[in-house]
Each structure stands twice: as C-alpha cells, then as structure tokens.
C-alpha cells in the first residue's frame, strides 16, 4: 500500500512539474518589444560589467543615443521593474506546484499494545486546478512583461527629454556669455562716460541696473543648467566621478515633422504596451472569474489514506474523502469579488484606450505646433534680428546711432538665437513625447 501511495505521489509531481517559460525568455521578449540594449543586473559580476560599459560610454562626449543606452542598463528604477518579471515568473512556477500532501504519523501505546498510524492527506482535486492556475499565472506574466515594457519606454522618453533639457540649458548658457560681454562693454563705457563728465549719475545708475539684471539672468541660466544636468544624472543613475561627462557638441536639429495624423491613433492602440497590459489584465480577470466559479464548492476536497498497525495484529488500511458542505459558504463572496475585479479591468481598458487616443491627438498637435514655432523662430526671427544688427551697423557708421544701440542690437540677435535653441528643444521634446505616445518609433527604441 505504501508503494501505491508513493506512486501516486510521484505521478502528481510529474504531472505538476511540466516545463515553464524561463525568466530569460521573458526578458528577451521584452527586449524585442523595447530595446536590444536592455540589461538585467542579477549578480555582482553583471553589475561590474554594466559599470564598465557605462564608464566606457561616458568616456566620450555623451549623445542622446548613448544616454538612452546608459539608462536602460544603469537606471535602478528600471532594474526594479525588471525584477517584476522575476516575481511574476516565480508566481508561474508556484502555480504549477500542487499543494503538498500531509504525511501524518501517530503512535500510541496502552496495555502492552502499540498502535501506529501512518496517514497521507492529499488535496487531490488541486491537481485538476493546476492547469487553470498555470494559465492564469501565464497571463499575469504577460501582463507584467507589457507593464515593464511600458515603463521602459516611459523612461526612454524621460531620459531623452532630460538630455534635451541639459543640452538646451548648456547651449543657452554658452550663448549668454557673449551677451553678458556685450552688457559689460556697455557698462564700462557708461562708467567712463560718467567719469569724463559726459553721463549723469542717474543715467549711469539706470545702466547699472540693466547690467545687474543681465548678471541675474546669467545666474538663472547657470541654475537651470545645473538643475537640468542633475535631472539627467539621476535618470542615468550616475554618481561621483561619473557625473563629469561632457555633452556632445551637436547643433540642435529639426527632423522631419510628421505632417499627417492619419492612422496614428490606430497605430498607438496597436503598439502601446500599456494598452496591451490593460488587455491582458482583462483577460486575467476573466480567467480568474472562471476559475473561481469552477472552484467555488469543491476547492477543498481532500483525499486521505491511512495505514494502521497494532502490535501483533494485521495492518489496517483505510481510504477516506472530506468534502466541504456548502451550507454556509457557497463561494458567492469570492465569485462576486472576481466579477467586480473583472468589471473594473474592463472599465480600466476603456479608460486607457480613450486616454491613449487623446494623448495621440495632443502629442501630434504639440509636436506639429512646436515644429512650426521652431521653424518660424529659426528661419524668420533669427535672420530678421541678424539683419537688424547689420542695419544698425550702417546706422552706427553714419553716426545715426551710438555704440549702445549697436551693442543692444547685438544682444537682440543673441537673444533670438537663444529663443531658437529653446524652440528646437521644445520641438525635440514634443517629438520624444509623440514617440512614446505612439508606442515607440518604427526604428530605434522599438
């Protein structure tokens, strides 16, 4: 009899121990959906390799592409997300395991008689629910994968925007140096004019005020630069000497704007990973509700086998079954809860879809108008101010304008160039938003 029990036990283990999908397989699928550069740090060795890679990437002036790369391997918030896959996958393994049988042994002695009982209780019906549970856990894992993928793309967007902010802040700061010099020349001349007796104290003070405000602006630009740089550092996951990297000296460029919004919403609905996650969540809730329905009464059926042995007597084997009587609990509570959860997920899916469509329209408009603004600024405002400066030079030649006007219009031109840099940055950030909103670009991060 013992053998029989053991056989059936082995059979159960065999039945439940079917092969499951590995963490690596899931992570590879995630890479397919997001970026091949994704790297999951699981061991100190891997951490070392990542650190070396990061330092290599930082040894040359940082461009946006490498900033994204560093984030994907070095951002510890993303690493936490990758572990979500580990968690879900473990759930899946767990789901394939049957509840452990209870092995009991009792021994009693009385009147010279020793009685021992060996028992084995198995929640046998549990075996039947294993495929259902595995199914559920599989769906949950897929949902997790999409959720993690969405977070990866979100972070890619954030690092791209942080990189643009840092680049814009640095370029504006550099341009402002020229403007500040121009202000300096003005105030120096004014001081000398005053000393020579040609400029009243009042007018000198007014110019001093202008100069002081220019210096304030320089401080503000320095502050913005430091803040932008630090936001980028944080997303890149850098500290210490690593933060001494330089940004690549590329001019900000306007790509080709998407000039047509046809099909964008459909594309986003199809590609967005949070949309896919929401679909999976509905799927999960539906299956979970079905599971609950099936197991509402019979989930706790137990089979037991007992072998009793008394001193000097024949062993006595018995088999038994315990069935919960649905007198008080028909499982209606659990069923109702599952139903509510399912409804919740359906509403959630609806909400996600509506929001995504709205985001697409919003982001498209944002990027398109930002493009127009950038073009208008760069192709009209900047050259017009350049021409103004050229004309002012002619007026200066003719003693029709003084040196202060000349310097002022020099600064106007500089300010126009700073505006153009801001406008380019706004467009590029809008473009990063649009990329995310559409569920990744066709090439690149997707």
């Amino acid at each position, binding site marked *: 009899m013992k053998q029989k029990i053991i056989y059936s036990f082995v059979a159960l283990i065999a039945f439940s121990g079917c092969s499951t999908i590995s963490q690596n397989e899931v992570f590879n699928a995630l890479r397919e959906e997001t970026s091949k550069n994704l790297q999951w740090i699981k061991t100190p060795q891997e951490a070392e390799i990542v650190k070396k890679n990061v330092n290599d990437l930082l040894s040359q002036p940082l461009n946006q592409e490498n900033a994204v790369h560093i984030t994907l391997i070095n951002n510890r918030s993303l690493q936490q997300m990758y572990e979500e896959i580990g968690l879900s996958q473990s759930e899946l393994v767990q789901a394939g395991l049957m509840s452990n049988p209870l092995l009991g042994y009792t021994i009693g002695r009385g009147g010279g008689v020793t009685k021992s009982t060996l028992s084995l209780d198995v929640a046998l019906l549990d075996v039947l629910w294993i495929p259902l549970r595995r199914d559920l856990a599989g769906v949950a894992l897929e949902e997790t994968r999409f959720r993690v993928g969405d977070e990866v793309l979100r972070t890619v967007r954030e690092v791209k925007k942080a990189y643009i902010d840092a680049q814009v802040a640095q370029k504006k700061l550099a341009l402002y140096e020229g403007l500040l010099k121009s202000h300096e020349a003005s105030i120096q001349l004014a001081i000398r004019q005053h000393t020579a007796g*040609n400029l009243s104290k009042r007018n000198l003070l007014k110019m001093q005020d202008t100069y002081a405000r220019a210096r304030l602006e320089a401080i503000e630009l320095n502050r913005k630069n430091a803040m932008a740089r630090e936001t980028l550092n944080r997303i890149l996951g850098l500290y210490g000497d690593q933060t001494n990297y330089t940004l690549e000296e590329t001019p900000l460029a306007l790509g080709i704007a998407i000039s047509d919004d046809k099909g964008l919403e459909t594309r986003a609905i199809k590609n967005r990973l949070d949309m896919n996650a929401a679909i999976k969540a509905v799927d999960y809730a539906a299956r979970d509700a079905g599971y609950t329905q099936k197991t509402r009464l019979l989930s706790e059926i137990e089979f037991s086998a007992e072998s009793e042995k008394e001193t000097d007597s024949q062993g006595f084997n018995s088999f038994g079954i315990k069935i919960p009587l649905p007198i008080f609990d028909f499982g209606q509570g659990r069923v109702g809860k599952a139903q509510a959860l399912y409804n919740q997920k359906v509403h959630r899916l609806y909400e996600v879809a509506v929001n995504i469509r709205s985001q697409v329209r919003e982001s498209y408009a944002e990027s398109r108008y930002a493009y127009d603004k950038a073009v208008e600024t760069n192709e009209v405002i900047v050259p017009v101010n350049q021409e103004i400066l050229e004309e002012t030079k002619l007026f200066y030649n003719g003693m029709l304008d003084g040196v202060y006007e000349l310097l002022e219009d020099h600064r106007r031109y500089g300010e126009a160039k700073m505006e153009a840099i801001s406008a380019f940055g706004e467009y590029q950030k809008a473009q990063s938003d649009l990329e995310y909103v559409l569920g990744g670009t066709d090439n690149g991060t997707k």
Partner: protein
Amino acid sequence: MGQNRRDFLGLSATLLASAGLGASLKAQEHDHGGHGESSSPKRHLTRVEDPKRVLSPATVITPQEGKNYNPVVTLNGWTLPYEMKEGVKEFHLIAEPVVREFAPGMVVNCWGYNGTSPGPTIEAVEGDRVRLIVTNKLPEHTTIHWHGLILPNGMDGVGGLTQPQIAPEETFVYEFTLVQSGTFMYHPHADEMVQMAMGAMGMFIIHPKNPKEHRVDRDFCFLLSSYDIAPGTYTPNPSTMTEFNLWTFNSRVFPGIDTMNVRVGDRVRIRVGNLTMTNHPIHMHGHTFEVSCTDGGWVPKSARWPEVTTDVAVGQMRAIEFVAKHEGDWSIHCHKSHHTMGPMGHSIPNMIGVKQDDIAQKISDLLPDYMYMPMGKSGMAEMSDMADMGMALPENTLPMMSGQGPFGPIEMGGMFTLVKVRKNQPKGDYSDPGWYTHPSGTVAKKR
C-alpha cells in the same frame, strides 16, 4: 482631429511669404513715386547715373518777345516757360508727387510742381497780366498762394477763405496783373504744413518794367526748405515741427548744390526765400554785400548797409547784391552749424574725452565680421574720413559730413555752397570752372 495636413501647409505658406519679404521689399525700391492715390501717375525711381545731367547748368529761360528783362538762374532748377495768349502770359502748373535727388546717393519722395521740387521758377515783368492754370494731381486738395504779391483778394489762394480748395484732378485758373517787382514765392495754402513739408513750393520773380533798373550781371535764386527724412527712408515726415535733419537750398544738399560761378567785376544778386520753420543767417565769405530787396520790394540805396550775414526769417525773402571783386572759391551758407550738416543721430552718446580703445577691442570681438571703430572720443571729424573710406550707410542716407575739396574733406552738408569768382569766367557762362588755383604764397601752410 483638428489639425490636418492642409492647416500645416497653410502655415508653411505663411513662412514662404515671410521668406519672400526681402525680395518684395527690394522690388518696392523702384517705385517710390507710388505713395499717392492710384490716380496719380507712378514715377519709377531711377538712380541718376550722371549727376551733371540734373545739376548745372541751370535752365535759363530768356524772354521771347524783346529782351525786356534779365533772367534769373535757379540753383538746380529751371524757369517755367509761358505762352502769350491775347496779351496774357499763361503759365501751367501741375501739383504732383515727384522724386527729387537731394544729392548723389539720396532720392526723396516729394510733392512739387511740373516734375520737380521745388517747382519751376515763375518769371514775369511788372505790369504783365498773368494767367496761372493750376492742375491738382496730388492725392489731396490744394491751392496756391502767391506769397508777397499784391493782387485781388480772390486770387490770394487761401483755401476756404478766398476760394474753394482745388480737389484732386481739378484745374483752377488764377489771373491777375503784376503791380510790383521783386522776389516772391508760391506755395500751397491748403493742408499747408504737410504740402510744404513735402516740398511743394517755388519762386516767383517779377522783374522791373525797365530792364536797366536794378540791373545785375548774374542773378541767382533759391529757396530754403527743411525736411525730416529718417535715415533709411525716402519720404519726409510731414508731422515734424522742429527736429528736421535735412536743410536744403532748393531741395538739394551739399555737395549736391550748384555753385554760383561769376566773373570778376560782375554785379551779382542772390535771392533767397525761406519756407522752413526757422530763420537762417545766410553768410558769405570774401565779400561784403548789401540787401537790395526784401519781401516788400527794393530797398532804397540810401537805406542799405554792408554786411556779411543776413538773417532770412521764416516766410521772408532777401536779395543780396555785391560786386565780385576777389577771386577764389568763397563759401556761402547758413551759419547755424547744424544746418550745414547731413543727418545725424541727436541722441548718440557723448564720447568726447572718453577712452575707448580697450573696450573697442572687446566690442570688435563680439562683432567679428564688422570693422568696429570707436567714435567721438576726440570730436567727430573722423566721421568724414569714414565716409571717404566708403563705409556703408543705411540705404538712401547721406553722410553727416561730406564733400571733398582740393585740400581734403570739406566736412559739410546741408545749406552750403560756393560762389566761385574767376577772372576768365566767360560772360553768360554759368558752368563750373573747377577749383581755384591760388597764387603762390597765398595759402595758409603748416609751420
């Protein structure tokens, strides 16, 4: 979605339009006469290739029937031809937008008569019956007032007071007998401020009945007028009251003004009328002169006194007379120093005595493609050098000081010209003899 491709293209079209702005601005440069109504013919601006064609010799109209007067020479101007109609001298004046070259390098959208501003000089003789037929081709109504003439009240040309205004495209006839002789002017008396600020004016010379009376060998005339033409523009600002930047003889500025070229021994008369809004002390070098004629007529010989400067007040006319005795190139100009200057910024910072060299280097570094020169440290004469070096100025703008003489830059502008007195200037020849050749030992020299 709200934003479709068509909207996007619409914005692009705006961009294209503004990108094309430069080109359209350039096209307009050739059409400066077009500031009037569409009914007035558009004059196309052309740069004068050969300034001599519009400079001297001045047009001199000699009387057709009997030499009964000695004609005047209008600097950079001309005399209006007339027709005799049944004993009446008939003149045709057309008030219209015109383009006037103030000096080589600058043309101005003016209002004037018969194609020029100032209009042609009207010359007639005391006792003449004249008929002045005035056609208005200006975009607004006008009249003509005959400044200083004794005439019937209804011929005085004051809009609303003595006649209705002459509407655009209308023609009015003035007819009266000239009962006096002397130096007079004509100008609008309808929206007078605008029309005179735009240059609508002219001289009216009435010769004495007896040609021997007040006879001179050379008789010159010009009007004083002032304009506010912002640097880089072409049209006078008619709402300016005091801050004019161009001071002219007959709507010309030095070095674009005819010189008055005479022969030693000539008796010379120079008639000046002032239609600016300020007085002008007209000063001549090398001779003393007498004022022989005012707005009211001839000054009795006993009442004249010698002088070298005579103030011509607003609305006045003065004729000065002298015998050209001293050979040379003698300046004649308004003695207000800013009236002998081209346009200049009145609010430029005062840099006299301010050391700038090191800051100049800093500014040059900020403007790498520009030859920056600090100005005004030791005065403004360097401006003249800059102009000679061909330093570019705003379009259609004259340098503050210019003119090149035989010894260097003359550093003048505005109301400045020369009386050139020569032994060998042929009689009746008004052409420029060139620079004076000084006898040796008569020129100031470096010690």
